[in-house]
């Protein structure tokens, strides 16, 4: 089957690993993001690794007027249209505390921008009767913590959106996979203190592809984060509010 993946936030390390793997399987990739020079390099890389087609497209989660063009480009491809959403931003909580206006940007990047995009895409998936949306949420969305609760709340909202979208697309033959990565070894986490069990982006990409193939609903990657978060979610709020984790 002719497969196309729209990859939002394609310049991130996780997205790059994912784009390469679907390219090796011969899919077409529409690489969307802001750094066009970087995306052009990635597009060449994907073609040389086996992508049927690879193009760089401009995407800014905060500028929804650009979304329609990406969807139109995808629509021009025959067969199955899929989307993987890797966008999100996480300024240091201290920076947000100093400038509350930053909250809007984090929520636009991690929740409202992607949600609006997927809402525009959903009719196309329904019309084709097939297609998978991969939404990258975060373990940070499972519970608000002092260190990054603005980001966490945006990802929590996005996860809830994905759950509803899954409910909708399932009826039309589509599917949604919610991915909750733990610590991944990317530019976003480079040099952050207190990280443990950091996963390679390629490992996360493998987990995502396996989840797509098996039509899993919600995955944690690496898998053990499911248990870590199970514990964290069950700490009574009376206790949790005093903890610093």
């Amino acid at each position: 089957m002719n497969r196309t993946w729209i990859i939002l936030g394609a310049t991130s390390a996780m997205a790059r690993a994912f784009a390469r793997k679907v390219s090796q399987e011969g899919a077409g990739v529409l690489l969307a993001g802001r750094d066009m020079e970087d995306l052009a390099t990635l597009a060449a890389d994907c073609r040389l690794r086996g992508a049927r087609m690879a193009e760089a497209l401009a995407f800014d989660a905060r500028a929804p007027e650009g979304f329609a063009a990406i969807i139109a480009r995808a629509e021009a491809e025959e067969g199955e249209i899929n989307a993987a959403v890797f966008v999100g931003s996480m300024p240091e909580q201290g920076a947000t505390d100093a400038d509350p206006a930053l909250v809007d940007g984090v929520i636009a990047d991690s929740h409202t921008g992607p949600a609006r995009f997927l809402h525009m895409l959903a009719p196309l998936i329904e019309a084709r009767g097939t297609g998978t949306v991969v939404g990258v949420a975060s373990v940070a969305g499972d519970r608000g913590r002092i260190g990054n609760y603005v980001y966490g709340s945006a990802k929590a909202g996005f996860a809830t959106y994905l759950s509803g979208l899954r409910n909708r697309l399932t009826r039309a033959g589509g599917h949604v996979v919610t991915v909750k990565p733990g610590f991944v070894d990317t530019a976003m986490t480079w040099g952050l203190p207190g990280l443990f069990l950091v996963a390679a982006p390629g490992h996360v990409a493998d987990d995502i592809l396996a989840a797509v193939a098996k039509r899993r609903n919600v995955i944690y990657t690496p898998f053990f984060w499911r248990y870590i978060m199970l514990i964290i979610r069950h700490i009574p709020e009376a206790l949790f509010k005093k903890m610093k984790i």
Partner: protein
Amino acid sequence: MLWKTADYAGWGRALVARGEIARPERQSTLAALLAEGLAPAIGMRRSYGDAALNGGGRVIDMTRLDRFRGFDPETGILDVEAGARIGDIAAAFAPRGWLPAVMPGTGLATVGGCIGQDVHGKNHHNVGSFCQHVVSLTLRSARGVVEVTPDRTADLFRATAGGLGQTGVILSARLRLLPRRGDVMVVTERRVEGWDEFLALLDASQATYTVGWIDATARGAALGRGILEEGETGSGLLPKRGQARRVPFDAPRFALAGPVVRAFNTAYYRRVPETGRTVVKPIADFFFPLDKIHDWNRLYGKRGFHQFQCVVPVAEAPALRAMLEEIAGSGLASPLAVLKRMGPGRAGHLSFPMEGYTLAVDFPNRSEARELIRGLESETLSARGRLYFAKDSLARGTDVAAMYPELAAWRKLVARADPEGALATDLVRRLSLRSAT
């Protein structure tokens, strides 16, 4: 965060540095970092010693800048970012009929690292060194971004090939790949009973790829016994490939103790039937046999290990034999040692290769071993041979200066490319490569 402070080591783990590391994922981030000031680039740190270390300073880890930028199937020229790994290139292009012309013994080495050490492969006697197949490279030096080619900017090219990152940060390179006959390796393995036979077989080998595994613990009449492997690309049926394994912890000291190594080596030697055999292997198994065990350097325990590698001219073969005798007599050598015949091919002022024989042996990081290696280094010098910067962690600057006659020419060019000395690494300082001692 762009910079993180960390302890990091070379592959041998005997030398460690503490300093700041950045690992940009985009060229725009790299450009911004370098606008703050030049810093040495590092690859996968597969150099054993301190070539990729800059204690107290900064380094730029290039491994996330690893994309294929373009490929011309007419000429076989691949344009690739410097952080791409050789094994990745082989895996992606072998099915299409191409292989990197030169591949070191680990597929995890990056293109930038292979240029920085002008590495050699099992086919050095036929095709020369890595940089002899570099058509051009893009270098960010103190003067900005420049295109470097072996003909139009010959001086800078000769300073950069094998130049240990001292002329600038290599951003990308255009490599001429070699066409290959099939997507597997057809390998002939035969037992070699001793030193003289080994040299004769290496000299006579007509194969595209030739490498000798030596049992560096065998003594007396068995001195220099081993296995000669000759390989050709070809087609055939492949056995199923196993999963990569990982060494999850630092091994205890006894893991590589003398008797264990001797027993292992004997078994390894006998594995090949007396009459020899021909086997079909996946390309990666032949070129990168050790990559199947991730983090195998941990087998040597926390204190790490050293690799001694030298090359001596053909006429000095007896000196090399004497070194092997000492190594075997010491009982300190680790499982496998490698003996190869090198051709004259080299591309840079500080490139390691010379026509002759090269021997590489691993030793645990212990004082007896360090002493032995120091002795071997002096013998290398008297045999008019040289040591390999990719492996060295114990040499003396004065010895090295005598081994690399083009050092003065290199120094001049490097001083122009990096006048402030911002690119110096621990190795460069230890051996006073950039300043006369």
